[in-house]
């Protein structure tokens, strides 16, 4: 009956292990399949949906009220939503925010063909994923046959089998001039080329706009290149430094990126973020491993071992670098204080640094954003 609230079609969520949640459809009607993960951020659903790292994944938000502030033109982290599907406890179809106008989350998802499900016990789902690990699942508001849905999920390959980076990366190189969001200007453009700016080439493995904005803010001229750009081509551009971005999926599938990173190290200062960090780990000959259910949220404490400061960080990764496998080659620079995982390193010889978390925030705290200046100093020191 659904008294008083939004009426809509029934939707189902079926997990690979056979667990089924029945809810209501929101966003686009249809079907979405992918790895189901949970994110513990209370704000920033638009940034999360548009974060290319979520390609191949269905995101469930642990916070229970979604849609509250609608969507706006300033918050996307890429051209369009990348998550495969969206799971929420309650979707509120009446946005209220001075930036959103009246544009609702549901309409936004519909526009981009993203299926959502609401009204399920997302906390039970989260606990299930915590106990049994992230796994493939399907959301459907078109196929009511549970057996059929379960079959689809079981037939679907694990996330490691895909190279989503190729899908989400830009196809062409482009320049970037937008600075960080601020009030009241919004997203202003960087001023005319000033002296002292350094040139950075950013590999787009599924890069978030806020990384680019942070680079601009830290005084870089930014050129973005597609994921498969060979190192030689980048070196031809003769940048002062190279950034390896975040992106979706298993780092082991992006061998071309690992190859490029290996060639760039020692030649140019390199800064890796998230997938970029993992790519560097592999390029140095280290190993990576998959976490049970990953880190997705905006409240993980990470200690910057170089300053001794604890930073509250934005996190979004399922894979980790085993920094110990790089003994002698790198120094550990960051440690996650929640579970002790290694979240940052710098090369003992070359100007190479990387972090597993997201210093660019968007969404999440800005505590770690100073690391873009650290990268800048790394370049200045040369």
């Amino acid at each position, binding site marked *: 009956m659904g008294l*008083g609230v939004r009426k809509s079609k029934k939707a189902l969520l079926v997990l690979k292990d056979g667990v089924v949640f029945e809810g209501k459809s929101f966003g686009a009607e249809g079907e979405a399949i992918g790895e189901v993960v949970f994110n513990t951020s209370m704000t920033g659903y638009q940034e999360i949906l548009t974060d290319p790292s979520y390609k191949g994944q269905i995101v469930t938000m642990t916070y229970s009220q979604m849609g509250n502030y609608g969507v706006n033109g300033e918050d996307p982290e890429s051209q369009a939503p990348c998550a495969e599907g969206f799971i929420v406890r309650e979707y509120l179809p009446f946005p209220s925010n001075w930036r959103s106008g009246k544009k609702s989350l549901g309409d936004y998802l519909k526009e981009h063909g993203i299926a959502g499900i609401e009204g399920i016990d997302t906390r039970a789902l989260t606990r299930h994923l*915590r106990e049994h690990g992230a796994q493939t699942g399907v959301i459907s508001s078109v196929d009511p046959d549970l057996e059929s849905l379960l079959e689809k999920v079981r037939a679907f390959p694990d996330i490691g089998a895909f190279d989503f980076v190729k899908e989400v990366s830009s196809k062409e190189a482009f320049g970037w001039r937008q600075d960080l969001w601020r009030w009241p200007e919004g997203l202003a453009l960087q001023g005319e080329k000033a002296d002292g700016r350094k040139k950075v080439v950013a590999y787009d493995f599924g890069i978030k706009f806020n990384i680019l904005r942070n680079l601009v803010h830290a005084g870089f001229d930014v050129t973005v290149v597609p994921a498969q750009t060979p190192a030689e081509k980048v070196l031809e551009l003769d940048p002062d430094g190279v950034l390896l971005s975040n992106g979706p999926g298993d780092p082991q599938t992006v061998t071309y990126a690992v190859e490029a990173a290996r060639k760039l190290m020692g030649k140019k200062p390199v800064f890796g973020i998230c997938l970029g960090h993992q790519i560097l780990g592999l390029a140095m000959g280290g190993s990576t491993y998959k976490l049970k259910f990953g880190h997705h949220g905006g409240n993980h404490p990470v200690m910057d071992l170089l300053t001794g400061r604890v930073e509250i960080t934005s996190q979004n990764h399922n894979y980790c670098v085993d920094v110990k496998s790089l003994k002698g080659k790198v120094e550990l620079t960051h440690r996650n204080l929640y579970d002790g995982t290694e979240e940052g390193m710098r090369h003992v010889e070359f100007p190479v640094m990387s972090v597993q978390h997201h210093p660019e925030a968007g969404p999440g705290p800005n505590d770690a954003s100073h690391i873009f200046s650290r990268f800048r100093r790394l370049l200045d020191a040369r």
Partner: protein
Amino acid sequence: MPKRTDIKKILIIGSGPIVIGQACEFDYSGTQACKALREEGYQVVLVNSNPATIMTDPEIADATYIEPLTADVLEMILEKERPDAVLPTMGGQTALNLAVEIWEKGVFQRLGIELIGANFNSIKKAEDRELFREAMRNIGLEVPGSAIVLSLEEGMRHIEEIGFPAILRPAFTLGGTGGGIAYNMEEYRELLEKGLKLSLNHQVLVEESVLGWKEYELEVMRDRADNVVIICSIENFDPMGVHTGDSITVAPAQTLTDKEYQRMRDASIAIIREIGVDTGGSNIQFALDPQTGRMTVIEMNPRVSRSSALASKATGFPIAKIAAKLAVGLTLNEIPNSITRETPASFEPTLDYVVTKIPRFAFEKFPEADPTLTTQMKSVGEVMSIGRTFKESLQKAIRSLETGSYGLDVSGFTDEEFFETKLRRPNNERLWAVAHAMRKGKSVSEIHELTMIDPWFLENIRQIVEAERELEEAGAKAKDILSDREALNGLKGMGFSDRRLGQLLGIGEDGIRKARKELGLRAVYKMVDTCAAEFQAFTPYLYSTYEKPFYRLASGEKTGVNTECEAAPSGRKKVVILGSGPNRIGQGIEFDYCCVHAVFALRELGYETIMVNCNPETVSTDYDTADRLYFEPLTIEDVLNIIGVERPEGVVVQFGGQTPLKLAIPLEREGVKIFGTSPDSIDRAEDRKRFRELLDKLALRQPRSDTAFSVEKALEAAKVIGYPVMVRPSYVLGGRAMEIVYDEDALAGYMRRAVKASPEHPVLIDKYLEDATEVDVDAVCDGRDVFVGGVMEHIEEAGIHSGDSACSLPPYSLDEDVVNEIKRQTAALALELNVIGLMNVQFAIKGKDIYILEVNPRASRTVPFVSKATGVPLAKVAAKVMAGKTLKELGLAEERSPFSHIAVKEAVFPFDRFHGVDPILGPEMKSTGEVMGIDTSFGLAYAKAQTASRSKIPTSGKIFFSLRDKDKPASVPIARKLLEMGFGIVATKGTAKNFEEHGLKVESVNKLMEGRPNVVDLLKNRELSFIVNTISDARAHKDSFYIRQNAMQYGVPYTTTISGARAVVEAIESLKKSKSLSIRPIQDYHKSPSSRA
């Protein structure tokens, strides 16, 4: 960084009596701080004048001074104890102000004591408006346009640029006392004058109005290594213009995008650094223009606060405890998160639920007060509730309030001015008015225009109203829902109570409960775990919700269809303790104190203790207090749900006041065992007829009384009983709607009002014993023996509510044989009622005659006072007795030897908050809190109690008398003594004449209407140091109101009873003899532990 080893002894300043703006949240915070510091190996000295607190229990600190919180007393304690450091951030504004005062006197510097938690400069920077604005400018943050005003002239100059409406905030006052909003010049002048007077440093901030802007609060913590975390964000339902303590607030913030939230977070971090709070927590308030997103900083509190207590309960992150540890040098990452155990405290809690706080008001106690909500706080308590959605938490919070509302159900708004008075003007009924307006067809945007409440909140309310409408419109078909599991689950998930649904469907609460039972539709419990289930949690801190079931598909079958409940009850021997709900006048911290003691005692006896309560300010809702905590409304529905899951051995209802007590019979009816005194015995004491039979059987006396259902019957009964009579409705809490009437006219008038107040209840009429002495007794009975914990003699005569009266333990004027007879009668009553646990009896003594006024077989308001005064933890003893221990086993079967000390309790009143309210005492309780004075004589103890309640005992100057005829004879010896001690006496003409006739030399002065100079001139010229003003009837009240009002305004202490005057004289004598107050820790008074309880 490891904790500091250069300090060993730390003094914590408490917050004193419960007043509006400063309630038991500081007991919660202070208790946590004491425990945390001792856990780290520090010696803790505590100063607090409030006996009704857990923090002043002798076990909580190494030395506890229940002494007045004044600079002089604190200085003496510092001299004596020589702590290495003082932590001033746990005791609210009182502690902070005191620390500032003492610092400015140079005491800390002279004794080499360090201020930790917040230093002098940061306190100054945060509290001094000008310094604060400058600090904000330094870090590029906006504050509303404003001016600091030190005089009326200056204020008049600045108002032109600031414009109307303008907000006035006096600096250094409690909860914004004296603040307000001025819409015109006249109001501005009036508020400014008052504010300048009230401010400790005669400073008032006049501010640009940000009325109607969105209001937010962030709770921030910082450690010595400069790590900063945000514990909680709070969004106010009521926009700017309503004090945050009076606002409905919601956590987390609901309508901020991440960018906007991060901007606020970054600002908060910058602020705590700029203000220089090195270690500990701060609360920072922001206003946001809903049209443009412009953000201004409103204020910062560099200490724990009401909001930090709320944030602690809302998130599971114990701010005060962590703040105390940070103050001694630990860093956030060195402290474990006790809920997850594995992870550190250097993180930001994330919620997967919504928390709603609704304040509770006491306007029914002060009918003359203006119920408009402004920047000056008026609420006396609050409830918090947790739900998976805002709708659910809102509706749960509504029924937690215990105001008779079980949803958005009040529809008695008939006022033509409805939209003006109930919507546009903020008031305590606005939430219900919003729903009402929606039913009347107003749109969300129209209501937003009127109220400026964010449309997101309004839309949620609209969904609730819509659901109700659909249910009502379905007519007969609506009952289909009773067999539709999913639909009913949906409504329960929106927070609807069984009671409200039963109302809407016309089948009553029981009908819905039955339907739920048949459908197997049960509430599930989820954990408050700080991390939204990312990590396993170990602390059973739970709330209820309704979730949809899920299942597993196995070989084509749906298996294990179930909703997930995380309660995981143990198989241990267990007991549920019901708390006392929101603080209100008549039921406050004293009852929480008793509940907490019950938990401690029952845990000692091996029970698993399960606490149910919905008051976020309390120690009982600290997840460290009981083994398991259910943060839930105290309604029969919610309690039965918990019992259904936990299956306890029994339920304890006698410690939380009326709230749990009224559940006793319904619970018993559902087959739940009630611990201790049986509900039938409780009924025997409460039912008038049965009670009279009981007294007859024991040959005990009570004042003549009768019951009336109509005006005629009441007049008849009163004639038989004889005037004056005390009248009241049959169901009372804290003396509500009770009055003493002296003649037929007054009675008829009362009957018209009271019967309107509660139509289905009769009115009770008792003989009022004039000039009788009232006595309170608290006792514990195990069915065989009776232990009389304390006999308290009231200072004010019978007829003044016992909660409002000062009292002395032991009695200071009663004969020993009277006291013995009181004890005997108490014991007889307890045994006859078969009390198992606590019992309170109120007696009136007239000459040698002893009358019984009331017997309450439950914890009373005075239990903590008795426990502190005697050293016997009465509530603990009672809890153990209820669990089957005997008094003999507890070593309390015999009477104890008399003490060499005496303790006095004094009440504290909120009159200064309610402009236009007469501060006269009567049978209706009006006090919000209490203080205790303890010393070797009655005079000294009384003097301490008065000092602690901010009613200074005069030692010189002129004393003013204006008396009713009846009191004139008794006043002569009082006045004579005052003259002997060197005071001058001023009196109104009639009173002066009486003194002169007895040969006393006094000045006479004009009443207000008699010409100039008059008494008000003397008050304004500060020529009077004390006022004695007694009044006979309601008309006289009105005629002399101006005296008391001016006394309050000019801060001149006063008494409205002759017995009060007598006690003051005794206090003056004692003070003159001993020259100054002396101090002594409570542990010293009770050196020999005579109880094994």
